């Protein structure tokens, strides 16, 4: 069992087991020794599902990464390609198959699409004359991958761009399918709330899919009380700001890869000893505490006690060392002057100061040719915090960016505009102050060490998305109708009736469990904020988080940049 998945209110090991089972079934279909050729992008997500030992048990003897020209030599019966349905990968596969040495022993080829078979890709294989070479062509519906006890992700890197730029709803379809799988395992979710165009679509698809499965009544007692579907474009602001929680900062600075994340989230005891769930301003403190006992005997004592209770003491010690050194490295960055300047500007924008004129710091960043992504993040942040920029300001930024970084970025700027991130103000009205005040997005008095409000994750700014979730659970969205109308897309509520036997009688004091699905991506800071709400004693709601992609502002902007194809 993967212990890190079962500590939460909902045992996500059940899901992990189900997807592992399906993997085994597929591997067993290809009898005999096997080599797997991996689409490199998939190795990360797969690592969360199955270790090499599982594959080895099913006679996987070799693994390669997918590359052009010939396959490496391997004395195996079967060659299985594990790939995402992408056209460029099909070309490589075809190259592999066609350059197979006919004189060698015959090998069987198989193709496993993750998460979905694609007729377009099969068409391409057919055009290249290799479709017939595959004995099994199947799909492995790894829609939602369990990352942590309360965290699921589809790891679909193009989801935001596809939904909000191209208008291609395929990833929404996968999200709906993933939700159907979850309901099959954890029971029908009685209430669905949503905000945004995509949320509406997913809810519609779910209702439709349910109608198609009417034959079998789901008889599992529901684990989730609510589902909240949220469009990323309802809250474009949050991911643009620099995340100031521990995991968020690691992500901002190093980018959390699956592996590193695994490493982090295994240490549940870390979470228990508050230190690492905290805000940046506590991190130095925490690092010092863990590293040097004399600073705070109590906390270190607690950690030691935890460690001694763990069966695998060495691992704990090792990870403790990792955390301490990571904290030190982060501190080097966060104490730099430029980091401070950037943060100051971000905080000014979010609290509504000087959002309507050209900002000196951004100008300086461009002049000094700071990374383009950093500049775009700031300009977009300013635009979002001002409900769009004045035409003159926008034109000025655009010209500066194009002259400094290259004219070809016209295309990227257009994408950002289309996604609503960087646009001219229309109607001359700035709605952000209304939203900020009504939803209390800016809190002046933040206690970062003993937080009382979610705004601690951005040192003052409370993520809009999480605020919406919080207000939904108490007192309900009726209280913020006006703001909901300003935010894009419809808001709605659907009920999925349950047979009387499955209706829940909640014990007094028992928390509700809400599954919150971020369509278009979620940041670690938002996750931290939701975890904070889950932990509140009188919170009343615990959250399980699902998303199309774990992301941060930089990976987000990067996905929207136009590159040569």
């Amino acid at each position, binding site marked *: *069992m993967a212990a890190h998945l079962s500590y939460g209110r909902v045992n996500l090991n*059940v899901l992990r087991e189900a997807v592992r*089972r399906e993997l*085994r079934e597929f591997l067993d279909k290809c*009898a*005999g020794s096997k080599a797997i050729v991996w689409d*490199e992008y998939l*190795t990360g997500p*797969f*690592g969360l599902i199955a*270790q090499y*030992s*599982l594959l080895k*048990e099913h006679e996987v003897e070799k*693994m390669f990464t997918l590359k052009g020209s010939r396959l*490496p030599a391997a*004395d195996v*019966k*079967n060659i299985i390609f594990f790939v995402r349905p992408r056209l460029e990968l099909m070309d490589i596969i075809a190259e592999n198959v066609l350059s197979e040495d006919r004189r060698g022993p015959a090998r069987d080829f198989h193709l496993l699409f993750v998460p*979905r*078979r694609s*007729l*377009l890709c*099969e068409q391409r294989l057919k055009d290249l004359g290799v*479709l*017939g070479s595959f004995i099994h062509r*199947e799909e492995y*519906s790894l829609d939602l991958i369990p990352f942590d006890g309360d965290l699921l992700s589809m790891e679909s890197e193009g989801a935001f761009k596809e939904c909000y730029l*191209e*208008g291609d*709803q*395929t990833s929404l*379809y996968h999200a709906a399918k993933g939700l159907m799988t979850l309901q099959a395992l954890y029971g029908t979710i009685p209430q669905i709330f949503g905000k945004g165009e995509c949320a509406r*679509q997913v809810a*519609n698809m779910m209702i439709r899919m349910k109608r198609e499965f009417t034959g079998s009544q789901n008889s599992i007692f529901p684990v989730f009380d609510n589902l909240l579907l949220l469009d990323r474009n309802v809250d474009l602001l949050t991911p643009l700001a620099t995340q100031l929680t521990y995991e968020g900062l690691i992500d*901002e*600075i*190093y980018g959390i*890869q699956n592996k*590193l994340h*695994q*490493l982090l989230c*295994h240490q549940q005891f870390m979470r228990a000893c508050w230190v690492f769930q905290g805000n940046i301003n506590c991190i130095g403190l925490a690092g010092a505490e863990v590293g040097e006992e004399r600073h705070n005997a109590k906390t270190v004592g607690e950690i030691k006690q935890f460690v001694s209770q763990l*069966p*695998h*003491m*060495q*691992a704990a*010690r*090792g990870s403790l060392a*990792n955390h301490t050194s990571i904290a030190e490295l982060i501190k080097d960055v966060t104490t730099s002057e430029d980091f401070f300047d950037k943060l100051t500007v971000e905080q000014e924008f979010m609290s509504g100061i000087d959002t309507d004129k050209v900002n000196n710091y951004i100008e300086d960043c461009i*002049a000094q040719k700071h990374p383009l992504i950093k500049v775009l993040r700031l300009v977009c942040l300013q635009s979002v915090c001002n409900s769009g920029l004045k035409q003159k300001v926008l*034109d000025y930024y655009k*010209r500066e960016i194009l*002259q400094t970084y*290259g*004219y*070809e970025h*016209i295309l990227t700027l257009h994408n950002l505009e289309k996604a609503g991130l960087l646009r001219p103000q229309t109607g001359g009205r700035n709605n952000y102050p209304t939203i900020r005040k009504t939803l209390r997005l800016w809190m002046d008095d933040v206690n970062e060490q003993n937080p009382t409000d979610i705004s601690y994750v951005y040192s003052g700014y409370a993520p809009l998305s999480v605020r919406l979730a919080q207000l939904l659970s108490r007192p309900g969205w009726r209280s913020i109708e006006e703001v909901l109308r300003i935010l894009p897309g419809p808001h709605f509520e659907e009920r999925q009736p349950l047979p009387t036997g499955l209706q829940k009688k909640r014990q007094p004091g028992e928390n509700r469990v809400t599954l919150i699905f971020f369509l278009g991506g979620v940041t670690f800071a938002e996750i931290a904020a939701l975890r904070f709400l889950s932990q509140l004693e009188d919170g009343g709601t615990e959250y399980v988080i699902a998303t199309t992609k774990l992301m941060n502002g930089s990976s987000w902007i990067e996905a929207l940049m*136009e590159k040569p194809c």
Partner: protein
Amino acid sequence: MSWTKGDEEEYWNSSKFKAFTFDDEDDELSQLKESKQAVNSLRDFVDDDDDDEDLERVSWSGEPVGSISWSIRETAGNSGSTHEGREQLKSRNSFSSYAQLPKPTSTYSLSSFFRGRTRPGSFQFLSDALSDTPAKSYAPELGRPKGEYRDYSNDWSPSDTVRRLRKGKICSLERFRSLQDKLQLLEEAVSMHDGNVITAVLIFLKRTLSKEILFRELEVRQVALRHLIHFLKEIGDQKLLLDLFRFLDRTEELALSHYQEHLNIQDPEKRKEFLKTCIGLPFSAEDSAHVQDHYTLLERQIIIEANDRHLELAGQTEIFRKHPRKASILNMPLVTTLFYSCFYHYTEAEGTFSSPINLKKTFKIPDKQYVLTALAARAKLRAWHDVDALFTTKNWLGYTKKRAPIGFHRVVEILHKNSAPVQILQEYVNLVEDVDTKLNLATKFKCHDVVIDTCRDLKDRQQLLAYRSKVDKGSAEEEKIDAILSSSQIRWKN
């Protein structure tokens, strides 16, 4: 920012940040390790999972041992001598204590939910037993049920067909001949929201309908239309895409889409010619100017590049001999080009294409931008005289005055970055207007005279005393401070 492979390795390998491995021979823990092994072997009997560790084994590269990417490297590295490789792998992986016992089939199977079939529990036993025996002796044909699976049945309605497509079955769409049938098929697919199926139907329509009819019908079906546009972008059918935009009268998208193609053209001459075709396309007014500039810039760069490569090869020009070019100037952004021209062609007359002034005029580069770039380039060459000239203005009476549109604090920072000597730095620090900023910069860049003089002017005795400890013992600065401190002329404020 991201961790490159090299960084990562360096990080894990440096002694300060010790990654955890099982090889860690730590005395106080060796006992525990033994007992853990005992526990692990016990687990083989009680636990039914194969990676029952709730901790992660981390190799020196920082990846969990036994993780997939780790094993790819391991197994790929061992290709060839398979047996030995496997042995090695086994020993490396010896701590993974996965169960050897057959596993009870879980009641949960995703496929059973979606495909409506269940597996008998005994199957797992069978396959486990199979896998224990040498693979070659078993007929592989057992697993060949449906190679090229096709269905030619003719009596499926559009909705049945779409349902079958959704399940990943290939079925022929050829029987939908009339336009009405085809459109019904499309509508059915769209209502399912499954992009995969929508695309499949669109491929069929694209093949069997004339362009005009396809476009006309999609114009009133926005969802399908968006999928087609995405699909055409994906497969790179630029021609049809442009036709479509033209038909839909989406002129700006048409222009952008056309412009985008230049990214794929490597040859500078061809790229330039292509950009020329973009001028005059229906961009927004702002973008029109940018695209025009893009063309002009590349045109310029090609001329400069040819000329400078020639000069460099000839070896007669001092600047190129002393500072050989690191890269070609082709396709660089405007500001970079300006920097280049300030570096290599600073003194050229305005008439030449490569002169900075010419670039400034042609592209309407703002003063600020120009001064910043010129300053950086001339400071890099340590041409302090040029730097001086950059900020000197004469008024109508002929007096000279120093002025910097970017603020002298920025000037100082750029000069410092290019390791300007203290005398030069000092001169510009002194020009900073704000006293606090001036004092900060002077302290930061060790312009002792400026610090001392400023403290004196501020009559700040305490600060001067504090600064005394920062200068070298017995230096001229110390003497100067002492002289000021002992002066009776100054009325200190503290």
